[in-house]
Each structure stands twice: as C-alpha cells, then as structure tokens.
C-alpha cells in the first residue's frame, strides 16, 4: 500500500469531509438556540405552548432520524398544495432535518439543566430586583450551561457521526467517497481512512468541550 494511493483516496474524502463539517456547523449553530427556545416554550405557563413543545420533542425523539431525513428530502415536495413550494436542494433539506432533530434533543438537555437549578436562585434574583430576562441571562443560563455541557458534548459527537446519514439521501460526503473507493479498488483501506478522519473530528470536539468545561468550572 503506497503513500501515493493513500493521498489519492484521501483527497476526495477530505472534500467530502468538508460537506460533513459544514453540515455539522449549520446543525450545531442553529439547533442549540432553537433547542433553547423549545425549552422555554416547554416551561411556559401558557398550556398550549408547553403542550406543543412537548409534543414536538416526543415526535422527533420517537422517530428515526433517517426517517426524518427521508421525509425532509423526498417527502416534503410530495405534500399536497404546499409541496411544490418545498422543493429544495437535498443538502439544505437534510440540514433542516438535522437542525430540527438535534433541537429536540438539545431542548431536553437544557430542560434537565434548568430543573437542576435551585429555586432559591430565582428567589435571590427576584428580591434583588432583577427582572425575568436579567435573571435568565445572568443567573440561570450560565449555571444551566455548566450542567448541560457534558451532555451537549455527547450530543455533538453523535452529530458528527450522524452526518454519515447523508449517504442515505445521496448527498456526497465523507462516507460516500470512501464507499466509492472501496467498490472501485477492492480494498478496505478507504474505510480505515474514513474512520481516522471521523476520529480526528471528534477528537477536536472532545478537546473543545473539555476546555469549555474547565472554563465553566467555578470553584
């Protein structure tokens, strides 16, 4: 096995990894704030909003991500009446699916974080005159984030690996190019290379979250 061969197969795979990384960034940057909003809705005192948020979480968590991706990529355009306006680029459709799916999981993580915060924190903020928004931003959110960080790290790493599902909706990415090379050259080396690239990506994430956890530690 020559180094030249490895370079040859690695090049398209690294290009595929770009798609993986772009999907990852879009999904993580949009699903975290969206998940946070869903948590706020779920905790809302307005019953219908809370019910909607819980139902959303239940439906998304209760069905396979692959099914959701197929639905967004191929199902949406088949909807009556509005379907023709929902035809979009398959990569965009997949991004939408990932954002919605991960938002539901992040919402649950944040909800757990909120539950872990003592009622006394809200009371202390209230008697000091902080309004709801100030309390959320300055008192609750920083503490919630610390509690949620390990679970968020876990979710993010899962997301890197889930990007391989793009394969099923025929958007070329890292795994797609590996599979192509395997079929063409009759060697499993491309799979090994793909594995190493995934490991590198998750390693970066692992280190990133470790650093974040250290930053959020307050002793």
């Amino acid at each position: 096995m020559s180094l030249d061969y490895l370079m040859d197969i690695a090049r398209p795979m690294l290009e595929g990894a770009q798609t993986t990384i772009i999907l990852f960034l879009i999904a993580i940057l949009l699903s975290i704030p969206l998940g946070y909003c869903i948590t706020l809705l779920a905790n809302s005192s307005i019953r219908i909003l809370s019910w909607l948020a819980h139902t959303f979480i239940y439906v998304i968590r209760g069905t396979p991500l692959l099914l959701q991706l197929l639905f967004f990529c191929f199902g949406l355009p088949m909807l009556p009446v509005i379907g023709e306006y929902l035809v979009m680029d398959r990569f965009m459709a997949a991004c939408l699916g990932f954002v919605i799916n991960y938002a539901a999981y992040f919402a649950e993580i944040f909800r757990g974080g909120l539950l872990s915060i003592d009622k006394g924190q809200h009371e202390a903020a209230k008697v000091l005159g902080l309004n709801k928004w100030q309390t959320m931003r300055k008192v609750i959110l920083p503490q919630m984030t610390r509690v949620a960080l390990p679970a968020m790290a876990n979710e993010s790493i899962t997301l890197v690996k889930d990007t391989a599902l793009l394969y099923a909706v025929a958007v070329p990415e890292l795994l797609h190019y590996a599979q192509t090379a395997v079929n063409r050259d009759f060697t499993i080396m491309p799979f090994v290379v793909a594995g190493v690239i995934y490991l590198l990506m998750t390693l970066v994430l692992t280190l990133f979250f470790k650093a974040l956890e250290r930053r959020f530690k307050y002793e």
Partner: protein
Amino acid sequence: MTMIEVSDMKKTYGSVDVLQKVRFTVEPGEVVAVIGPSGSGKSTMLRSLIHLEEIDGGSIRIGGESLVEDGRYAAPSVIRQITSRMGMVFQHFNLFPHLTVQQNLELAPKMVKRENAALIRSRSTELLAKVGLADKAGAHPAKLSGGQKQRVAIARALMMSPDILLFDEPTSALDPELTGEVLQVIKQLASEKITMVIVTHEMNFARDVADRVIFMDNGEIAESGTPEQIFGNPQLERTRAFLKL
C-alpha cells in the same frame, strides 16, 4: 411613617390556613424578631412581605404604600417598586455560585440600578470590609464557609441600600460555631438603625437584638411584646411551652 403595616393577612393552602388574621406594624429603625415552632407560618409571613408568596386576604403596606390592599395586589410595576425597598437574607444563602463574591454583590446594582461602575466597586469593597470578608472578594462561594457565605449574602442585600432587611432563619443552616459571626454582623446593623424583621430560632439572639418579639403559632400571632415581656413573663401557656419556661 410606619415602615411595615400588616393587617388581617390571610393565606390558605387548600383547606389549611397557614396564616390567619396576622396583624402587626414595624416602625422605622425597629428590629423585630419573629419566633415560633416550625410550621407556624413565620417564614410564609416574612416571604409575603417581599412578594415571594402571595396572600389571599388582608393588606400589606410598606412605607405607606400598598403592596396589597384587602387581598388585591398592586400593579406589577408598583409591586416591583415597593419590594425594591426591601432586602432579604435566606436560610440557604442563595448566593450565585458562578460569580465571585464581589460579582455577587455587584450584579444587581449593575443590572437594576445601572449605577456607575466605579461607585459600585467602591461600595462593594466597603461592604465586604464591613462584614469582614475583604480578602474573599475574588473567591467563588464554593470556597467559603457557611458563616462567610451568609455574611456575603447580607452584604449583597445591603448593596441595594434597602430601607428594610428581612432575615429568614439566617443561622439555621450553619454549624453552631459559625452562627456567632453572622449574628455579630446583624447586631451591628441593628445598632445602625436599619429596620429589620428576623425570623429566628436563636432565642438568646432575639432577646439581645430585638426591640420587639412576635411569637407565632398555628398561623397567627399569639403574643407579641418587648423581649423582657415575652421571655421574662409570657402571658400565654403555649408561649411558655414553646420557650420551655
């Protein structure tokens, strides 16, 4: 002007009356200790004064302004304005664990009063010195003992320059050897004529620091008077029983 005026305060949880016909006044500069058995409604009464609990009937006036009149609460903005005249110290301190001691003190003045940062810094430094914790300004609450935490909590409440300070069992969560340092700080505030209502189990402290003692039992004020009257010559059998006289 009377600082706190409570009349016919009433609160029920389901069919249980936790507070009934509670009526008392606190004059400016007065220190009132509230004693009584667990479940007598002392904490609920105190928390109602600063709107952490809502009452179902009666009136509360703070500095002449109505927080609630005959069971009807003022508008939210008025409630905020009235409760901003009070500070509260909790049994479990409720410090913000993600902030340093000094940040704990400065958060509310920065966010709520939007005062000048230098002014806030000089006051927080001064108050930390006052409670004997000047050297802990940069520490996080987790690094402090219970007594130190409670002194930070008192300084944090003082940062907002309240007219009235409420204490909800400030030493109940502390190891016995740490209560002294907290009580010392409260005593000093009493000597500075800050109006205070203190729910406490420390009878010696109540006798020492209070101008007036209120004994609560079963959601009502059973007896009230000077410390000499309550501790020396209580009129009611249940007061005697509680004080084990």
